């Protein structure tokens, strides 16, 4: 009973801020002092489905960019996280700080320089350029998450698998990755959402030619159409919600975290 009440309270607190968005997206005019709109419409939703608002295109571009930067961040984060989590080597502390720098330093301070280099490489205004620049915040998060995952990983499982006849590649696919999968999911979730929501880096490096969902949202916000903006905003939250549901399911599966000790 109390549990249900607590749960409902959490849901209300979490979703209350979004309720005006939801109302706006289906309201046909909503003026003071009305508590809720008195006329309803689905026009805003049908508007964002048309090509002219570029929502579909932005959604797709965001998806591709987020997926690519997550994949690349994993490619760097897995070995880097392993090194930081399991090995002791001189300069480890310095490398950790170096890794945190992109998060600590405002991108505004570095964007000019990055843009200069990307222009010379001909990558400014391209999707590849945007993916590369999205690695700036995603790699540190991914590496930090994976290094703490590896710090709790018992390499005895790998040694055991080797003596049972598994080659290093087989160990990676059959033992290590399945055992650290929950951590990989968390890291990938972080990276995906960071990339999905990234505005500033895309804005500069994309130079208006790479049009992700945050760009669409920003343009629409400037246009002043509250209803359409609300509908786009809700659309941009969707992946986060889907991912959260998916990952909470993956993470609550006890068998998956067996290799991670007391995490």
């Amino acid at each position, binding site marked *: 009973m109390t549990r249900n009440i607590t749960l409902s309270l959490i849901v209300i607190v979490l979703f209350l801020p979004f309720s005006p968005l939801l109302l706006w997206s289906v309201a046909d005019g909503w003026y003071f002092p009305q508590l809720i709109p008195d006329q309803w419409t689905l026009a805003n939703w049908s508007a964002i489905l048309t090509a002219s608002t570029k929502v579909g295109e932005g959604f797709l571009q965001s998806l591709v960019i987020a997926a690519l930067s997550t994949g690349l961040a994993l490619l760097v984060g897995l070995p880097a996280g392993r090194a930081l989590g399991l090995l002791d080597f001189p300069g480890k502390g310095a490398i950790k700080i170096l890794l945190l720098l992109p998060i600590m330093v405002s991108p505004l301070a570095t964007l000019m320089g990055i843009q200069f280099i990307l222009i010379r490489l001909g990558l400014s205004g391209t999707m590849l350029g945007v993916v590369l620049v999205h690695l700036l915040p995603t790699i540190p998060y991914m590496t930090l998450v994976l290094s703490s995952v590896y710090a709790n990983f*018992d390499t*005895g*499982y790998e*040694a*055991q*698998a*080797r*003596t*049972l*006849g*598994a*080659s290093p590649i*087989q160990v990676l696919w*059959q*033992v290590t990755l*399945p*055992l650290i*999968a929950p951590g990989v999911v968390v890291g990938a979730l972080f990276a995906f959402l960071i990339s999905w929501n990234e505005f500033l880096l895309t804005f500069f490096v994309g130079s208006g030619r790479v049009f992700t969902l945050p760009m669409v949202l920003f343009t629409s916000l400037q246009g002043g159409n509250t209803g359409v903006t609300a509908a786009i905003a809700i659309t941009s939250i969707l992946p986060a919600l889907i991912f959260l549901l998916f990952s909470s399911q993956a993470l609550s599966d*006890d*068998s*998956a975290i*067996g*290799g991670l000790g007391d995490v």
Partner: protein
Amino acid sequence: MSNTPYFSIQQLTKSFRKTLAASDVWLDIQQGERLSLLGPSGCGKSTVLKLIAGILRPDRGEIFLANRLLNRVPPEQREIALVLQKGLLFPHLNVGENVAFGLKMRGISRAEQETRALAMLEQVQLGGFAHRHPSELSGGQAQRVALARALVIQPKVLLLDEPLSALDASLRSDMQTLILQLQKETGVTMVIVTHDQSEAVVMSDRIALMFDGCLRQVDTPEVLYQQPCDQTVARFFGGVNFFSAEAQQHQLSLPGGDTLITDYPQQGTVDVTIRPERIHVLAEAICSTNLLPVKVVQNRFTGTQRHLVLKTPDRLELQAWVPPSQDFAIGQSVFAHLPADALWSFSPDSQLVSTLPQTV
């Protein structure tokens, strides 16, 4: 049959940073033999096991198995299976998949994987457990699955690293019986690492005793008990009686003037030891040789034995374990009979004997 041993470790040396974990280890092991690597924790015995398994690389030395140099062979191709103390069942696989793991890695067909894994589970008395999850097993069951997983790949050598130390005493003896039985059925050569001398005695044909990274004595349990090569070895096997004596032509002169006769010829100043259970305590002097008049200073009943502490007039202290029926009062004057064949002596300055392996 050639003269070269089936499994041979030569000059094996490994150090971590500055500490020498294994130093110049030589071992020859026969096919089908059970050998224990025994020693206190931190003596390097697990390191030797990991070097054999190929998880660690030696700094120096060679490992030969069936005439093949293993040094550059990766662990997955060595045909040596390893069972660790923690069992380390893969938590993302069920019991059957765990046992079949090694077969799957070898690309054996799914049907054969299943048959062999199920048969192996049957052999460790866990038939019907194939679909259980490792987290649903008790410690003993998990160790049996780990054993099945190692044996199903039909290794040439089975390495066990303290496989029973996490189990309680009654379970441990059941597991010892099971391991011995499986070893007999499969005929696999077995090397077991343990810090428990009683386990080593039960489990092995020969014991390799290790201190500080060095092998001290390699011999049968009987020899290690009765004829240790030095005091450290004797103490590790529960030796408690040590006294120095002058040895000359089968005679030992104790400092107090008493004389003991041994059937072991040695000269000069020697350390003499006798196992506490080999001392006879007599109320009256019914024989004349090797008899010391003593006083009982302590009498402790342990249930299966009485542990007596005896003192000679020259303040030489002896411990004797006698049957519970032999009860003596504190302060009672009795006689300790030290049988000649139970007395064992070694020179007090005896250097570490790097005992070369003997054939069983």
